[in-house]
């Protein structure tokens, strides 16, 4: 493998230059580190640095902010699964999270309606969990006494729920809730414990990714090192999408997360744990808009087989594949070119694979002539098409925006009204007409070719050689940021090109960072981003290496003081 050079200014500058020439791009949406990295005080993270970066970075611009954020719905769901082990799905109570600036879920402010939802969820969960209190904290009321058990519960369960030990005052406050429930409301011990549990689940200490206060009189932007428990939770919610386990909490307690070496050890253990699957699923689902398959509709006269079962099978096939890659060699190249598939009878039929029937997923190899990599999966393609036909600009736009991090101007006002489709011609022919339009051509000349690469697949992602009487032409040219024009014959070839493309690797790195930080990248993050990117490239595009580098970085272990803090 020839390792590409680390990113330089040219990666940033070229798309902008191109923008001026086409009148389409806004520019690139991702930095790999690039220009800011060089003058921001030298990154020194990384796994082999020993304790070189254990001190607070002197340059306060070298880490980013960490604004207060609530648990997302999926984090909440995973957390109560691990914390309570009850069979209640809290997402039935909670409004779904909208998409934030960074392209990933961003919980809303807690307005009155949301506060109501959170309270109802806490009540339902506590009611279910109070049936099995003994599994949450082992305390025998008969020998120890009820109130002692209430105190034990506040201390031990509270530590897991709040992801840190409670102060004596905090334990007293929970006991006050318990006493009030027993004495004033006249509830028995189990019912009073249910009220305490509800209070814990409704508390901001449970609901937020909290942080400890900085020192008094902090200057804006001053750098603060995360305490062991803060870091344990941050690592856990990034790598596992859920609360820290006992091992992580123990590491936090013993100071094991206070050094770079300790963090590195913890992160390596976490990456080997199958809880990373929730993070891998969540990231890819949001990054590539895979949830599209859940809501698209297809013309039932043309695609009678496209029923809810097939949707589920398609979605599952992609998710299993992504997990398989990340748990395997984790290379971007593998993600974009590998032919391993987990198919049941429905998806096997779609992929034309013989000998698979029923609901059980089986591992198979897809046909090398027709499939290779994530982008060629039916569940991805079917989420990007129209009910009855393909939609090349939409597919091309997604590649453009999500895999290359280039931004595209929206269609001009009135765009669709001037586009009349000629049914006697191929889909490709119709969209090619737009390329010569003065108004539309600027963008369609850029977006269409990558979309045409998808033309060998119909609206539900089945392979095809013809569209009606028209033979399929899925060839095109990829305009690399370097200025190279790289020809491809089909989607497999385009995928292989993207897998080796600097801009795509920069983009994938950028999207993982936005996901990990739960916000847009900031100047202070740039040294950490540049350092992680170097490790990503040095490891031949190893996504697990990238995740580890992010988790071990300075901007993850430290934060800048928020204005007004």
């Amino acid at each position, binding site marked *: 493998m020839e390792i590409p050079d680390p990113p330089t200014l040219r990666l940033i500058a070229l798309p902008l230059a191109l923008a001026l020439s086409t009148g389409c791009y806004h520019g690139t949406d991702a930095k790999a580190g690039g220009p800011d990295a060089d003058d921001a005080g030298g990154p020194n993270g990384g796994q082999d640095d020993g304790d070189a970066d254990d001190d607070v970075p002197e340059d306060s611009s070298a880490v980013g902010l960490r604004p207060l954020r609530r648990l997302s719905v999926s984090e909440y769901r995973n957390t109560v699964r691990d914390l309570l082990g009850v069979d209640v799905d809290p997402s039935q109570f909670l409004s779904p999270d909208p998409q934030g600036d960074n392209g990933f879920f961003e919980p*809303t402010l807690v307005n*009155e309606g949301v506060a109501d939802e959170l309270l109802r969820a806490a009540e339902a969960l506590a009611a279910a969990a109070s049936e099995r209190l003994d599994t949450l904290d082992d305390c025998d009321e008969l020998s120890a006494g009820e109130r002692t058990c209430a105190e034990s519960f506040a201390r031990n369960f509270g530590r897991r729920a709040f992801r840190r030990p409670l102060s004596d005052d905090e334990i007293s406050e929970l006991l006050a809730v318990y006493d009030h429930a027993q004495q004033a409301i006249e509830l028995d011990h189990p019912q009073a414990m249910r009220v305490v549990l509800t209070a814990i689940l409704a508390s901001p200490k449970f609901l937020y990714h909290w942080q400890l206060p900085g020192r008094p009189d902090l200057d804006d932007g001053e750098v603060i090192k995360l305490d062991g428990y803060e870091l344990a939770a941050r690592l856990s919610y990034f790598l596992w999408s859920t609360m820290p386990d006992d091992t992580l909490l123990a590491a936090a307690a013993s100071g094991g997360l206070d050094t770079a070496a300790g963090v590195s050890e913890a992160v390596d253990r976490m990456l080997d744990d199958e809880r990373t699957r929730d993070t891998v699923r969540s990231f890819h689902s949001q990054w590539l808009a895979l949830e599209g398959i859940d809501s698209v509709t297809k013309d039932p006269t043309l695609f009678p087989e496209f029923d809810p079962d097939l949707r589920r099978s398609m979605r599952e096939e992609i998710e299993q594949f992504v997990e398989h890659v990340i748990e395997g060699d984790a290379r971007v190249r593998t993600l974009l070119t590998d032919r391993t598939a987990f198919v049941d009878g429905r998806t096997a039929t779609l992929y034309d694979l013989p000998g698979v029937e029923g609901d059980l997923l089986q591992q198979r190899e897809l046909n090398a002539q027709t499939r290779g990599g994530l982008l060629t999966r039916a569940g991805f393609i079917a989420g990007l098409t129209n009910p009855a036909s393909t939609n090349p600009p939409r597919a091309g736009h997604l590649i453009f925006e999500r895999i290359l991090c280039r931004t595209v101007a929206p269609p001009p006002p009135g765009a669709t009204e001037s586009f009349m489709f000629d049914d006697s011609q191929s889909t490709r022919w119709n969209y090619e007409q737009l390329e010569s339009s003065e108004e539309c051509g600027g963008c369609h000349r850029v977006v269409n070719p990558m979309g045409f690469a998808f033309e060998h697949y119909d609206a539900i992602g089945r392979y095809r050689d013809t569209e009606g009487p028209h033979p399929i032409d899925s060839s095109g040219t990829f305009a690399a940021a370097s200025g190279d024009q790289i020809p491809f014959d089909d989607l497999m070839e385009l995928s292989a090109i993207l897998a080796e493309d600097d801009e795509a690797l920069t983009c994938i790195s950028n999207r993982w960072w936005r996901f990990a930080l739960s916000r847009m990248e900031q100047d202070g993050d740039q040294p950490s981003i540049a350092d992680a990117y170097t490790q990503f490239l040095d490891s031949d595009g190893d996504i697990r290496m990238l995740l580890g580098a992010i988790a071990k970085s300075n901007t993850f272990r430290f934060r800048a003081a928020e204005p007004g803090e």
Partner: protein
Amino acid sequence: MTHFHDPSRFSRRRFLEGLGLSAAFLPMLHSEYARGGGIGGLPTRFAAIVWPNGVLHDAFWPSGGEHDFVLSEVLSGLEPHRDHILILDDLDNRAMMDQFSNYGGHASLPYMLTGGPGKYKHAGEDLAIGDSISLDQYIADEYQAGSEATPFHSLVMGVDNQEETKTPHKYISFSGPAIGDQPNAPKVEDDIHAVFTNLFGGAGDGGDGGELDELIAKTRAERRSILDYVGRDLERFSERLGTESREKVEIHLASIRALEQRLDDVGGAAGEPPDIDPTIDPYRKEHYDQIAMAQLDLTVAAFASNLTRNASLLWSNGHNNSWVFSWLGGEFAEAGDGSFNPLRSHHEMAHRGGGGGNGDDQRRKNTVDKYFIDKFAYFVDKCRQVNEGAGTMLDNCALLMANNMGNGAAHSNNRLPWVLAGSCGGYFRTGRYLRQGGGRPHNGVLVGIANAMGTPVDSFGVAEYGGELPGLQ
């Protein structure tokens, strides 16, 4: 006066049994009318309905003059109410056009009831989020702070708002300026059954002293204790945070205080609940029509019972790819016809009908706009059926039917199709087609409604767009 029905005919037990303990989240029900600016001291109310994707101007606007106007086919459902409406022509969403001229018309929701300015946000595309209080929330805040307080601050409802994931396309109502990159917007409630339960689900505690009452009393006491604990936690939590994080926690705290207030505020008689079909699924496209009707019925009932005096109904996200009008007949049905661009989404229909399309495309677009106007006519009619003082409830209402665009196919924000119904206590001179000529900022209508509601302002939103639109009175 509206007649209150005997609250006992309405079974609390039904809700407790049907929805579990949490249905005992008891709303408070006031029997006393607050004083208001309406006729004879009756309360005034404001409701805004937003429907999307513009209209075909040639087919929408009336012909004729200010008083002798002839309604178009699209507007014809309002003919029985022509003396009670004010058709507002020549309005532009200047606040949006001047701030971000490159934005498409779909991005206009945050400007509609705030009057701008919006706050820039990049969410895959360049968009703005609301950055100031909206008219409905402003009026409600004013009422709640004074002697006009109602049991519920306001109703904020939407049809399948959960489907939209981008915040710039999700909200028309705002509580105040954005916090960081997040709009400070009340939850848009999609679930009509939740709204129903909140408004009418409990009948206070004037009960039989039996087991059920005890259960309710204990549940309430538990909640008070939990909210008190959470509130104190939040107070301490906020002390040590930076400015933006602290603002987030303060909003959370205010919400907890509001829930506490709702617990404290129990008693009195229930209003008359509307009939809501329990089988309506708030998230099923085929039920959108029934959901919209239910929201109108709930609003009328809440207004008539003085449970609240402000409502906003967002009948689509900013794009409306979601509505499919299958109930309007086969050609609108979800099943594609096998051709490109099946005429199934409102968005697509607006584009095809608005230009370049054939007669059928235009007819379908107008059919859908007429459908929405007919809903509004139903709303107006329901308000007229409630006797109030010497007239009807409509006389004390300002009901606004507002589209977010002019020509939807062109994404334009000029010549917004807006219709106002009700004189709002005799403030508006209705029965007219108001043509002012040349793009007036829509802020002038917002100012007029604020004034009519007895919460006067000199301007609303961006101040430079001036005061009340001349000619409303």
